[in-house]
């Protein structure tokens, strides 16, 4: 074996390193280094030409000095000279120096590239590898330009050595990451994919990384890799522990390659070919079986390698989310790990179970481990393990266990590590809102949250509790009573004072009948906190006081006295002073009527309503929807208000925390926008879109680079299954013949079709609905394809298209009934004729009902008929465009939105979308070439609406400004709404 002695080969280097190590102080070290630098400089500048060995030694010393953290500003040329040496050791040091100290000095890059070029064509595998490693390590654009076309050739050439192929594959991967536009696989694709069959496992190991990366970008071109990967995996999994010799690691055959194969398969949906799929399922079963076998070695390396494969297999099973049997087995296996003595395994099991919790097939199985997980939260020593336990509790939470989980989280919060408190607080707040069965529980939970972890309760959380209390009159009295009690505590958190001040100011009258909480008692209680509070809170309290004067005339004198005192009306803070002065005058001069009008109860906050809630309200009239009715209603959205997008919404609010305006301005409604402003609306949809765009190719978690948001996102996809009845959910309503409310994701599905006319509108385990549509003038025709994905017949298959509300008079949709039977595996078609009578904002609803195995399926979608479908493109010159732009200058004619880019800002994609919109994309119109302008006329039966659009990307900020000007106000608004979701 090659035992290497200290610094062999370069004595001078070893001596220098020893010297440095012997330096007693930083100063001594710097002195020694400066001496060496001077020495090397003089050698490099000297008249005597240095031999290769000396050059290598000095360059290596410079490298060492650089790695110690000192700047090096010379020696680059000598390093480049070493590249053309024909001695390996000299070349290696030259390449190493370049790789570590590269700077894009163009002069040198040319020389370096030249040397690399020579080595690549040297046919010497050692030199070729050195050159390839240098490219892979530096990976600059210049190198990609020089070598991107050469390397695929080396990779697939028949006479290339295996080790060179390994390096070439990964070198190409690096260039592809740096400059995807320069790496054109085209003709090489198939030969690269077939590297999966290579005899040399090292070549397969390296090539698979390249193939995985390319597959993610071009799944269709590389899809033949699926069957190759499956057969390779199958050979490895079924081999005996010693078959693979060099590639067996502690009795585990090729663990890293197995993981990579399983990872590659996660770029694709389950194989369509039955034989391939069968083989893969067999592999996954074998892997699960092996986990139950006695270990072949007691060494941790053995179990780690085995479990690395197991966890990757479980990720694939979760990715497919279609094999209930495997999902449940995976869950059971992880359940065993939850109690394992190895902390690593407990941690990974908690983490992996978190994703299993979001599958409808394994959600229930995950829930059975609740006690173990709660115990982990209480007893694990490693905070990161406790954090995973909290994540898992959050993910497994549903209506059945919400109270238990929220209670456990709250009690954990009392002792939780500071690092995770804020996140825990948000999770508790979201769960409390999402699964609130009664609002008094919700109010209690949030107030507890403030009491226990007030510092970590962000503004969004207490804004939210206020919004909900304002909006629900059934909880207002309870909220007033509870905050009143909470404020009795001698030391209560400032956030509690804020909530208390706001709620008593609005609803203190509801508890004023009790002498223990008479108006004056309430006021004194609040005012006892006043002087310890910050300016914004004091401002809020002043507003509460003026509200008190309106609610309780008997407090007027006391409060006026407070307002009148010097510390208020001469307060140095302008905000406080202004409020004190204005409120004092208002209360002295205004008549009771004026006062009552000005200080009226706050209007309800606008909810981002879920479609189900809107529908229920419409049915029963405003205000008639009680909590219990909502609770009993279909579980589509699951949540009481806001539908399934509530979770991300709140998360997004937290994300936009920094930009939230000061509450002091907000609470009296001085600012027009509600505290949860437009920013969170677009941020909320950003999250939604990220997930919908993820598609089958990328697991959701990989898309979102913000772990925190990801964690918060998961539960929105819990078992609120699309198959409400089919999934045998015990607390869902009995099958009803009424059309179901639209799916919570109906709007997202609709949004996908704004800029395109064809595609898959909807898909679940049973049914796929495809769409093809065409439009001309104010007419459209839409073909709907209903595919039965099961092998069982659908009976009583009916579809109903309806135009709710105003839409009835705006859109005319005609269709014929479909055949009531859809055989297993069959597809039926339905044609819709659409006529646009006048402009519209809502979408027609498509309800589908059928029986599958006795259970009634009932789902409602929004048909992607949007106003832009009736666009006629209009070409016009720059002059005309701006003239019309100016003509459409009434404020209502313009709608504008500034929002964050949701989908990257690639020019070609943007153009394609704008064209898909139906307008003409006008070149050379906007003076700023970065901007896009479009023009079109919307054709309706009653009128034509001219529309101009301008989209201004700000690549640096990753933001857009979208402006629409249309001859009709409602069209501007609707288009703006629709389009803001598209970019």
């Amino acid at each position, binding site marked *: 074996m090659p035992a290497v002695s200290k610094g062999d080969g370069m004595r001078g280097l070893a001596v220098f390193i020893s010297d440095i190590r012997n330096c007693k102080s930083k100063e001594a070290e710097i002195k020694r280094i400066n001496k060496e630098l001077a020495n090397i400089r003089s050698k490099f500048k000297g008249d005597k030409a240095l031999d290769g060995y000396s050059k290598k030694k000095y360059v290596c010393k410079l490298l060492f000095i650089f790695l110690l953290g000192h700047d090096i500003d010379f020696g680059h040329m000598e390093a480049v000279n070493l590249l053309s040496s024909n001695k390996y050791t000299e070349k*290696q040091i030259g390449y190493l120096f370049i790789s570590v100290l590269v700077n894009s000095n163009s002069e040198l890059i040319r020389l370096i590239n030249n040397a690399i070029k020579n080595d690549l064509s040297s046919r010497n595998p050692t030199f070729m590898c050195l050159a390839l*490693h240098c490219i892979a390590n530096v990976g600059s654009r210049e190198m990609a330009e020089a070598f991107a076309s050469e390397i695929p050739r080396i990779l697939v050439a028949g006479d290339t050595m295996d080790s060179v192929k390994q390096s070439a594959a990964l070198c190409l991967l690096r260039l592809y990451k740096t400059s995807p536009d320069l790496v054109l696989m085209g003709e090489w694709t198939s030969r690269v994919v077939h590297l999966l069959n290579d005899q040399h496992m*090292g070549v397969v190991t*390296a090539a698979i*990384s390249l193939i995985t990366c390319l597959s*993610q970008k071009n799944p269709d071109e590389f899809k033949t890799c699926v069957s190759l990967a499956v057969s390779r995996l199958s050979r490895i999994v079924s081999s005996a522990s010693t078959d693979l010799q060099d590639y067996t690691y502690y009795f585990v055959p090729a663990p*890293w390659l197995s993981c990579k194969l399983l990872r590659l398969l996660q770029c694709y949906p389950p194989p369509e070919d039955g034989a391939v799929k069968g083989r893969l399922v067999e592999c996954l079963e074998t892997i699960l079986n092996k986990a139950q076998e006695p270990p072949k070695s007691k060494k941790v390396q053995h179990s780690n390698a085995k479990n690395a494969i197991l966890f990757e297999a479980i990720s694939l099973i979760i990715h497919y989310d279609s094999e209930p049997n495997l999902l449940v087995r995976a869950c059971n296996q992880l359940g065993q790990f939850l109690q394992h003595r190895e902390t690593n395994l407990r941690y990974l099991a908690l983490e992996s179970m978190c994703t299993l919790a979001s599958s409808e097939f394994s959600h229930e199985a995950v829930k059975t481990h609740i006690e173990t997980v709660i115990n982990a939260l209480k007893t694990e020593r490693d905070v990161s*393990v406790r954090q995973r336990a909290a994540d898992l509790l959050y993910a497994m939470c549903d209506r059945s266990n919400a109270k238990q989980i929220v209670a456990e989280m709250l009690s954990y919060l009392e002792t939780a590590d500071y690092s995770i408190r804020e996140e825990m607080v948000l999770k508790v707040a979201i769960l409390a809102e999402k699964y609130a069965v009664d609002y008094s529980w919700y109010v209690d939970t949030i107030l507890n949250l403030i009491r226990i972890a007030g510092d970590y309760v962000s503004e969004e959380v207490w804004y939210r509790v206020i919004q909900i209390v304002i909006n629900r009159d059934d909880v207002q009295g309870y909220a007033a009573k509870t905050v009143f009690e909470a404020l009795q505590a001698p030391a209560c958190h400032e956030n509690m004072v804020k909530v208390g001040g706001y709620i008593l100011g609005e609803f203190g009258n509801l508890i004023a009948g009790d002498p223990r909480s008479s108006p004056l008692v309430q006021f004194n209680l609040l005012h006892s906190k006043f002087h310890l509070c910050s300016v914004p809170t004091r401002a809020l309290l002043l507003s509460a006081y003026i509200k008190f004067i309106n609610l309780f005339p008997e407090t007027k004198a006391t409060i006026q006295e407070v307002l009148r005192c010097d510390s208020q009306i001469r307060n140095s803070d302008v905000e406080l002073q202004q409020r004190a002065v204005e409120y004092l005058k208002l209360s002295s001069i205004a008549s009771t009527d004026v006062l009552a009008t000005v200080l009226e109860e706050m209007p309800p906050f606008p909810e981002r309503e879920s479609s189900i809630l809107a529908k229920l309200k419409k049915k029963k009239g405003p205000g008639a929807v009680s909590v219990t009715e909502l609770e009993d209603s279909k579980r589509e959205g699951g949540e009481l208000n806001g539908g399934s997008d509530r979770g991300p919404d709140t998360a997004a609010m937290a994300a936009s925390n920094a930009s939230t305006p000061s509450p002091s301005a907000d609470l009296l409604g001085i600012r027009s926008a509600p505290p949860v402003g437009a920013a969170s609306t677009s941020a909320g949809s950003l999250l939604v879109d990220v997930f919908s765009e993820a598609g089958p190719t990328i697991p959701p978690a990989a898309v979102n680079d913000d772990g925190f948001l990801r964690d918060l996102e998961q539960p929105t996809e819990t078992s609120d299954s699309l198959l409400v009845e089919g999934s045998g959910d015990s607390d869902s309503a009995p099958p009803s013949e009424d059309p179901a409310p639209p799916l919570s994701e109906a709007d997202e599905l609709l949004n996908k079709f704004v800029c395109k006319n064809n595609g898959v509108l909807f898909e679940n385990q049973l049914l796929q609905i495809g769409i093809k549509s065409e439009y001309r003038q104010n007419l459209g025709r839409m073909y709907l394809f209903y595919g039965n994905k099961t092998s069982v017949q659908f009976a009583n298959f009916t579809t109903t298209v309806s135009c709710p509300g105003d839409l009835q008079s705006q859109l005319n949709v005609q269709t014929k009934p479909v055949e009531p039977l859809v055989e297993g595996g069959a597809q039926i078609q339905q044609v819709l004729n659409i006529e646009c009578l006048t402009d519209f904002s809502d979408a027609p609803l498509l309800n589908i009902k059928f029986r599958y195995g006795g259970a009634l399926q009932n789902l409602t979608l929004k048909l992607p008929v949007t106003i832009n479908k009736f666009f006629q493109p209009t070409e016009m010159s720059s002059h005309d465009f701006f003239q019309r732009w100016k003509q459409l200058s009434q404020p209502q004619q313009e709608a504008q939105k500034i929002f964050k880019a949701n989908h990257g800002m690639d020019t070609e994609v943007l153009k394609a979308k704008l064209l898909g919109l139906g307008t003409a994309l006008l070149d050379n119109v906007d003076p700023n070439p970065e901007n896009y302008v479009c023009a079109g006329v919307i054709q309706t039966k009653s009128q034509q609406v001219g529309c101009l659009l301008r989209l201004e990307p700000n690549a640096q900020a990753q933001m857009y400004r979208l402006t629409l000007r249309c001859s009709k106000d409602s069209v501007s608004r609707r288009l703006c709404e629709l389009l803001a979701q598209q970019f």
Partner: protein
Amino acid sequence: SLWIRFILIQNRAGKTRLAKWYMQFDDDEKQKLIEEVHAVVTVRDAKHTNFVEFRNFKIIYRRYAGLYFCICVDVTDNNLAYLEGIHNFVEVLNEYFHNVCELDLVFNFYKVYTVVDEMFLAGEIRETSQTKVLKQLLMLQSLE
């Protein structure tokens, strides 16, 4: 796609024995990362996991005597595969340097880079067979 962002070998005192970067960072950023990794890793003990969240990534690490071997990867990547990837690498170093110790890495720093490049390239695993890697290193050792 998932790949290794960097590999660090540090001793308890925070001295870097190897830093291999697979992502562009400027020198200041590298120094900051090195310090942060040292801070999060050295406070952990044997009862803790070998994984720690780190910015938007995670560090998979293992301690051998006074040295911490750390690999920074995407949060969704396979923890145990990298944990054993580290061990595989350490076993190769141990063979190559014949009972490797910290000083071997100091005096032969330029050879350690060669070992790394044989086993990891472009942030991916290049070769996992210890036999193959050692055979190659032996061959390179024999070259002038």
